[in-house]
C-alpha cells in the first residue's frame, strides 16, 4: 500500500533537495556586496514611503474576531445536518437552542456597536 505514495515522497525529496542545493550553492559561490539600495524592498522601483508593515485600523480585528466566531460555530451544524432526519424533533430543538445562543451574542455585539465602522 505504501508504495503508492512513493512518487510523492520522491517528489518531495527532489523538490526539497533542489531548493536546498540552489540556496546553498548561491550562498557559497555568489559574491556578497550589499549596499543600501539593494536592501530596500524594491531595489529598482519607487522609493517606499514609510514602513511596509503598516498598521491596520483596529476595526479590522473586531470584524475578524466576529467573523471567526460566527463562521466557525456553524461547523457544529454540519454533523447535525448529516443526521438531522434521524435526530428528528429532538435534534431540531437542540439546534434551535444553539442558534438562539448565537443570536443573543449577535444582538449583544450589534447593540454594542461592534459592526459600526467608527
Amino acid at each position, binding site marked *: 500500500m505504501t508504495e503508492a505514495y512513493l512518487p510523492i515522497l520522491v517528489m518531495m525529496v527532489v523538490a526539497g533537495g533542489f531548493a536546498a542545493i540552489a540556496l546553498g550553492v548561491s550562498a557559497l559561490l555568489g559574491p556578497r556586496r550589499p549596499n543600501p539600495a539593494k536592501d530596500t524592498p524594491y531595489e529598482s522601483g519607487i522609493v517606499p514611503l514609510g514602513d511596509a508593515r503598516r498598521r491596520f485600523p483596529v476595526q479590522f480585528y473586531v470584524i475578524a474576531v466576529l467573523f471567526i466566531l460566527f463562521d466557525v460555530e456553524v461547523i457544529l451544524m454540519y454533523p447535525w445536518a448529516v443526521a438531522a432526519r434521524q435526530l428528528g424533533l429532538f435534534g431540531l430543538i437542540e439546534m434551535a437552542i444553539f442558534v438562539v445562543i448565537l443570536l443573543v451574542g449577535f444582538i449583544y455585539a450589534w*447593540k454594542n*456597536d461592534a459592526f459600526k465602522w467608527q
Partner: protein
Amino acid sequence: MTFPTLNFPVIAPQIVLVAAALIILLADLMVANKRILGWISLIAVIGALAAVFVCRSDSAAFPLALGGPSGPGTMALADGLGLFASAAVLIAAGLAILLAIERVGDFSRFEKPGSEKKQARSGDHPIAEAPGPQVTDRAGAYYALLLLATAGMTAMATASDLMTIFIALEIFSLALYILVGFNRRDLRSGEAALKYFLLGAFASGFFLYGIALIYAATGTTSLEAILHNIQPMSISLPFRPLLPVGMGLLLVGFGFKLALVPFHMWTPDAYQGAPTPVTAFMSVATKAAAFAALIRVLAAVASYDRPWLLALAALAVLTMTLGNLAALRQTSLKRMLAYSSIAHAGYLLIGLAAGNQLGVEGALYYLLAYTFMNLGAFAVLLAVQRRDENDVTGDRILGLAGRQPLLAALMAVLMFSLAGIPPLAGFFGKLYVFSGAVEAGLAWLAIVGVLNSALGAYYYLRVTILMFMAEPAESDQEISSGKVETLQPGWAVMTTVVLAVLGTIVLGLWQWPWTQTIAQAVSTLALR
C-alpha cells in the same frame, strides 16, 4: 437508531447558569442600573446551587448517554464528588458576585471605543480622562462571563468523559481570560490576560494532545470505558504504550489549571493583574473544578499505582516549597496570596498523592475550606483596595486594627486559617491530608508538608503584624484633611467577608455534616 437520552437533573445547574448569562446579556442592553444584573446573577447561582441539592437528594448517578460505535458512555455524572465540587464552585461564584456588586464599576467602566481612539492618538494616558457621557459600563458582560465560567467549572466537576472535561475546561478558561483582562484602564490587567491566555492555550494544547493519545491508547474517551479497556486482556490495543505519555500530557493541563510547580508561573502575574473579585473567584473555583476532574481521571486512568503517586508527591513538594518561599518576600498582598494559593495547591495535592480514602477526603475538605478562606482573604483585600487602583500593597492594611477593628479581626481569622491554626478549617484540611499521607506510608511527605506550613505561617503572620502591630502609613491628619481617601468597605463586601469567615469557623468547629458528605462522595470512587 437510538436517541441520546438526556438526563436534565444532571445538567440542571449548567442550564440555569447559561440561561441566566444570556438573560443578563440581553438585560444589559436595556437597564441602566447595572446592580440589578448582579442580583439576577446571584439568584441564578443560588438557583443552580438548589439544583445541585435536588440532584443530591436523588443521590443516584444520572448518566447522560452518548450513543456511538465505541459503546455508550456517560458524558457527565452527578455523583457525590461532582456535586460536592459543584457546590464548592457555586459557593465561590455566589460570594464572588456578592463581592463584586458594589465594586464592579471600578473596573468595568471605560470610555467608548470611539473616544478612546482619539485619546490614544493625542495623549498617552486614556485613563486620566474624566468620565463623560461616553462611558460604557461592561458590568453585564462581567456577570455573564462569570456565570459562564461557573457553568464551565460545574460541568468540569461533573464531567465523566475526557472530551467533556476538555470542553468544560475551555468554556471556563475562555471566560476567565477575558475576566482577567477586564480592567481596561490598567495595562497590568491586559498583560495578565495576555500571559494567562497564551500559556493557557499552550497548556490546553498539551491537554488536548494528552486526550488524543489516551484515545489512541484505549479507543475511548469515556473514563468509565477507559477503566474497563485498560484491564489486561479486555481488548487488543496496539497503541497501549501511549497511555502514560497521554496521561503525562493530561497532567500538564491539570497542573496548569491547578497552578502546580513547574506549571505555575502564570499564576502570580495573572492573579496580581486581574481585578480583585476575579482573582478571588478564579483562585478558588478553578481549583475546585480541576481537582474534582483530576480525582476522577486518576481513579480511572492511573488506578492509583505507585509511580503516579510518586509523581504527584514530587509535584506537591515542589509546589508547596516554591509557593511558600516566593511568598515570603512579596510587597503586593495580591501577589503574596497568589503564591500562597500555589502553596495550597501543593497541600491539596498531598491528599491525592496519598491516594487513599483519608487523603482524598482530606483534599475535598481542604478544597471547601480553601474556598472560604482564600476567597475571604481576597475579599478583605478588595475592601481595603482603592477604587482607582488594581493592586493592594502592605501599606493599605498598616494599622488596620485601629481603623476598622472588625475587618482586621476577620482578616486575622482568615490568615490564621490559611496558616493552619486550629480550630479553624485550614488546620483540619492540613491535618486530614497529612494524616492521609502518613497512613499511606508517605510520612516524609507529611513532614515536608508540615515544615512548609511552618514556613507559610511566617508570611500570613506578617499580615496580622501589619494590621495589629503597626501604625497606618498615612497619619490621621492626612486622612482627616482629605488627602488620602478613607475607604469604608460597602456592606456587600463586608457581608462576603463575614460569610467567608463564618464558613471557615463553622467548617472547623461543626465538622461532621461536611465530613459525612465527603466520605459518601469518596466512597463511590475506586480507591485503594
